[in-house]
């Protein structure tokens, strides 16, 4: 009886200390989480502030005259070599007729993007019946105009220090008052490849490059990774060789990704002669990179299948193949898919190995196949971040936002798959 009391007393004596420890641990945990969330919030906030403006772009409304003299000299439609620049300039002159001086006019022409001429060309190519007509068309303004509109160029500072002169700013204000200048959704960002002109630069080329690469990566690394995991878990004898393979796979997962790029350069490009800068090679390199991740995740989820299920199937006379394909694989699949998607999102965000295989080239055309030269989203971000133009800064942030959106989407898919397919046993 007395013993019991002393036990209780001892416990009670220690209780306060235990509770205190618990409290300290809990607060520390909350502080740590808070710091993490804070950093994340700051990161997203600055990114959104900087990048969101890139989703809009300044456009000028010009009365374009599809003059037959220029586009079809001598009655023959000359889509290829007509002076579309001249057409755009004429429209601009009509807007501000008082500008007559040659050098002033040259200043005036700088307000409109070189992309305007392409737009006129595309319009007449799509609708030849426009010939001889005059239409009001929204054409992209130059990056400097755009920066002024978005408040990135301060009109108050000394004229010498900004890229727009007082005169140009005056014209822009007049165009704005006439309702000829407006911010519109920047479709070019999603429909163009890279460009030297910020207002024409888009991420479609990089997105397609990333897309083709991920196709190659998933098509190769998932089946190979799952097959390797199944073999290692279910069939390979446990001996020194399988230990060696295991250690090596775990090591591969930790190898810096640039090493895989060097390997890809040496093997796929120099030795096998595959094309440089191609998503095919990028995909192969990323396959090497994600394979260990997928193998490790798949092995873990195969291991998690209870042995009693295997025994039940074996006891009924199922062969080892049947055990694997009828029971182990369906139960391990959610884990494997999750691993694959996490591997894919790592591959999507990878840039270092792609630099090694030439995917950092300046490529304007949107790739149409696995062998076309292209870049990838993270590399595009790197390229733009390196550009001196002010207008590329916001595009860099916008590209990061797009990349993050894709990553979020993929990780969300992983979570949903896990929730959906998870079964209890």
């Amino acid at each position: 009886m007395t013993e019991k009391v002393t036990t209780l007393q001892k416990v009670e004596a220690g209780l306060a200390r235990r509770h205190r420890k618990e409290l300290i641990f809990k607060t520390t945990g909350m502080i740590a989480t808070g710091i993490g969330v804070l950093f994340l919030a700051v990161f997203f906030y600055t990114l959104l502030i900087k990048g969101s403006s890139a989703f809009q772009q300044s456009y000028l409304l010009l009365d374009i005259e599809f003059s037959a003299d220029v586009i079809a000299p001598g009655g023959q439609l000359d889509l290829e070599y007509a002076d579309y620049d001249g057409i755009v300039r004429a429209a601009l002159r009509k807007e501000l007729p008082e500008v007559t001086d040659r050098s002033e006019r040259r200043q005036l022409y700088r307000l409109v993007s070189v992309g305007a001429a392409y737009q006129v060309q595309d319009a007449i190519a799509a609708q030849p019946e426009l010939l001889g007509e005059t239409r009001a068309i929204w054409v992209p303004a130059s990056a400097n105009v755009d920066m002024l509109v978005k408040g990135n160029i301060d009109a108050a500072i000394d004229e010498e220090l900004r890229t727009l002169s007082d005169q140009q700013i005056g014209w822009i204000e007049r165009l704005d008052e006439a309702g000829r200048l407006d911010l519109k959704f920047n479709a070019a960002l999603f429909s163009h490849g890279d460009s030297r002109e910020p207002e024409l630069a888009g991420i479609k080329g990089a997105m397609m490059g990333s897309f083709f690469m991920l196709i190659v990566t998933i098509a190769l690394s998932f089946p190979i990774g799952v097959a390797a995991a199944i073999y290692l878990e279910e069939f390979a004898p446990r001996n020194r060789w399988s230990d060696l393979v295991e250690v090596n796979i775990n090591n591969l997962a930790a190898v810096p990704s640039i090493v895989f790029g060097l390997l890809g350069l040496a093997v796929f490009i120099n030795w096998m002669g595959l094309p440089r800068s191609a998503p095919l090679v990028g995909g192969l390199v990323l396959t090497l990179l994600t394979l260990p991740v997928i193998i490790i995740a798949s092995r873990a989820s195969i291991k998690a299948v209870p042995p009693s299920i295997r025994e039940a199937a074996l006891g009924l006379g199922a062969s080892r193949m049947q055990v694997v394909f009828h029971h182990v694989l369906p139960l391990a699949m959610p884990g494997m898919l999750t691993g694959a998607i996490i591997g894919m999102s790592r591959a999507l965000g990878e840039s270092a190995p792609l630099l090694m295989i030439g995917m950092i080239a300046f490529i304007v055309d949107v790739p149409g196949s696995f062998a076309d030269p292209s870049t990838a989203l993270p590399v595009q971000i790197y390229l733009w971040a390196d550009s001196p133009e002010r207008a590329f800064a916001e595009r860099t942030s916008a590209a990061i936002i797009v990349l993050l959106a894709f990553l979020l989407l993929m990780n969300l898919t992983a979570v949903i798959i896990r929730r959906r397919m998870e079964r209890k046993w």
Partner: protein
Amino acid sequence: MVATLKNYRQRDTEMAANTENTAEKRRKAAVPDYHEQEIELGRETVGHVRCEEPFMVAENVNVHYGDNHAIRDVTLEIGKKEVVALIGPSGCGKSTFLRCLNRMNDSIESARVTGSITLDGADIYSKEQDPVALRARVGMVFQKPNPFPKSIYDNVAYGPRIHGLASDRAELDTIVHSSLERAGLLKEVKDRLDEPGTSLSGGQQQRLCIARTIAVNPEVILMDEPCSALDPIATARIEDLMDELCEDYAIVIVTHSMQQAARVSRRVAYFHLGYLVEVDDTDKVFTNPQHKLTEDYITGRIG
């Protein structure tokens, strides 16, 4: 048969009462060191290892797990349509021996089986013997119910499917229904065959596992403590089922319950530290054990 069974059941209650009485005494008596005795007690199995109509015959079977000699020189015959109970203290090798009979030990890498085991005269460890075919003839029910995470129907249909026992859906339906019926589960689940097998209660799951095993129509059924996780009612059901099944199959059952061994088996094999100490007719072992170790075990002094 029925009369003897009744006898056993009567004796169960007596034995239970007996155990109560001796419990005090036993606690006071020093536990004998059986590792010492192991050396001095002769290793000849006492009783009758042979039976009239042998179907499965194990001759001088030894099993090693690495350096651990788990089964030592065991010889035992299992007759057609006979229930043999394997009893003995924990770790004596009952499960190991049972798993030898359908080569489940193959999947344990460290396990090495020597000696010979024949099924209907054919060596089951020979090179020509495919373990898949063997396991279709020698089914197994495990200690813990382990239904597949599939529907009840698919659980039972799995064996027939992989062995191609049914030529069409209707035939498969018949097999599934009759197997569930014989396992005494059909009444409870016939409206919910599409529900997962894991949604059943423990006792129902175990009967599902039995249904799954008999759906393949094996010749021998091995059961490793099939009732250890079940309540007395579910246990009684499964014991009744065994009574029925032994009209068609040979059954080898591992059990820790002497009462259960007495109720369901015709012969009892007592294992001790890897040795098969005594085999004989059930009533003989329980009323008049020949070996001192057997006597100590069934009177509750070991285990």
